[in-house]
């Protein structure tokens, strides 16, 4: 199993901060621009989540849905996703790289072929939104064979029984969805999130990253005070449609958003 992710969390712990996990959709708004944006984001984050565009992103809000649509309209293929990952890996040997998406893309090209290519592209783990622990057998063997972490989601509706099941299956880290909703909605109440994160720790030693709905550095700092990692997605993705005609402004506003979030990671109250 690739140990890069655990090294990242260990390093962050030594530096007394949370890891910043940043998401962008591959191929949004087109492959060359996306690669520039993702390279820029890689500079600011500890772990990069690269979204694999899908025609039917059922768990995503309008911002990431639109990103998926732009990427597919621009002709983004799964090979482009692998190529972007590979290029990022060459520049950033210590960065965590996770592919995030929906089951049908890896299922259709074959989990074995998908995992092999992901692994060869320097990917550390895979997060598939619609493959819960119960359906693990569909991808388990392939991911293990190619040393890919299986990152699982937990949510406020996850019962202790489900948390236990996920803890048995997950590796790399656990992604706690801080609200019952789709990506990009408003964040849940911070103290409630903290209680739930602590409950998950009773079942798993894996690092816990919290995401969904974190839009401001203040929110990020709040979450960073109790979570091992903070995931920012829609907030970064939303920089793209705001500046579609000016890719240089798009890049600079993403840089600004990312550095603000990165700075927030260090603000850990006692």
């Amino acid at each position, binding site marked *: 199993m690739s140990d890069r992710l655990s090294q990242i969390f260990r390093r962050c712990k030594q530096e007394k901060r949370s890891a910043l996990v940043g998401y962008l959709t591959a191929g949004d708004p087109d492959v060359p621009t996306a690669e520039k944006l993702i390279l820029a984001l890689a500079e600011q984050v500890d772990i990069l989540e690269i979204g694999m565009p899908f025609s039917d992103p059922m768990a995503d809000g309008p911002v990431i849905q639109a990103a998926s649509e732009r990427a597919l309209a621009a002709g983004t293929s799964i090979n482009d996703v692998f190529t972007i990952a590979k290029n990022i890996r060459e520049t950033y040997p210590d960065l965590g790289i996770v592919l995030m998406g929906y089951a049908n893309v890896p299922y259709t090209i074959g989990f074995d072929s998908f995992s092999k290519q992901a692994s060869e592209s320097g990917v550390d783990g895979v997060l598939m939104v619609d493959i819960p622990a119960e359906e693990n057998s569909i991808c388990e063997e392939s991911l293990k064979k190619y040393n890919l972490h299986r990152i699982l*989601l937990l949510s406020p509706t996850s019962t202790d029984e489900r948390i236990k099941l996920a803890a048995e299956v997950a590796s790399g880290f656990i992604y706690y969805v801080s609200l019952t909703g789709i990506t990009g*909605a408003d964040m849940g109440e911070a103290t409630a999130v903290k209680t739930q994160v602590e409950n998950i720790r009773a079942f798993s030693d894996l690092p816990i990253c919290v995401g969904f709905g974190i839009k401001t550095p203040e929110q990020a700092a709040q979450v960073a005070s109790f979570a091992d990692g903070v995931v920012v997605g829609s907030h970064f993705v939303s920089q793209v449609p705001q500046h579609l005609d000016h890719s240089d402004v798009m890049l600079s506003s993403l840089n600004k958003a990312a550095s603000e979030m990165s700075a927030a990671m260090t603000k850990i109250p006692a």
Partner: protein
Amino acid sequence: MNNKQNESIYNLDIAHAPDENGHFGRFGGRFAAETLMQPLKEIENAFFKAWADPGFHAERFDLLKHYVGRATPLYHAKHLSAEVGGAQIYLKREDLNHTGAHKVNNTIGQALLARRMGKKKVIAETGAGQHGVATATVAAMFNMQCDIYMGREDIRRQAPNVFRMKLLGANVVPVDSGTATLKDAVNEALRIWVATCEDTYYIFGTAAGPHPFPLMVRQFHTVIGQEARAQCLEQAGKLPDVAVACVGGGSNAIGLLHPLQDDDIRLVAVEAAGHGLESGEHAASLAKGQPGIIHGSLSYLLDDDEGQIQGTHSISAGLDYPGVGPELAAMMETGRLELDSATDDDALEAFQILTKAEGIIPALESSHALAAGIRIAKNMKPDQMILINLSGRGDKDLETVMKMLDMSETGDKA
């Protein structure tokens, strides 16, 4: 109501059940976002509890009889049979249900379940609007708040049904994402449900989606096949040689065919061939698709070689869906289910044939089953019998048919 009669016709055993995670063979399952896993389990638990409770069925059958108008007739279409000149054609008249299609069998069942679970609000997706109307109808009767998600494109195509839903007090929410049709309406309803599952029940409209929907929707529709089976024995003194139903997601098909699968009867599923199976413009996921994962289950679907879901085409909005229920996929792979298809033109022709021969205007969905059924009947003997599910009535399709016939007339003149 007559409980004894119900006991004799309606078998409440759950035959051919999926495994505990909802797998029918290698298909089905629960490929859902984590947030939905617990709500789905709660529905599953509530469903099994209700299904084991005679009180639930007493209430359900009472509504099916007095509100929906069941049992629906089995009609020996003698004129059509004579015109076709082959097997005796029998029609299961689901078009005579309240709201004009089989869909209400399911919405009655799920609304009763939602009420038992204490949910105050229901949501549903709809394509043609039939499931939306059936949901809005029961929501009105049960005094539940109701939001119907519908693709903007379908809202444009199905204006009368949109008006019907609004009259019934439902809020029709337009969906603009993706292709703005049924699949996108399902995506949007799932997204909303993720955020509202605490007080909201999602009445899924077909025998697809994550477990327990394929099982539950099937169980609420098996009343079709159970009645038809008993009626065939009573009216014809025998079971049919062939049973035929159209397939979009597959709810009317599994409802008719499931109770007949242990009999020596050919079971035929008819998919929408649109402009032709080789045209690339159709909705034949079993014939032309490949296994994949969409809307919470593993089944056949129409996607490209990288797993992106493809746009579909059918004259019938109710069949215009890129996926299909997992149990039908499993029945096809074991060879129990035969596949057939009908093009837009075939369906339009069958629509007119039945209307003129029997004075029954069928839904365009059901016209696909009729088109294939007539073709099969032609090659059978007059002492043989074919059962066709007339899943809905055609009033909703008059505008579409009018346009198509105008077009072909103009075409003839040109």
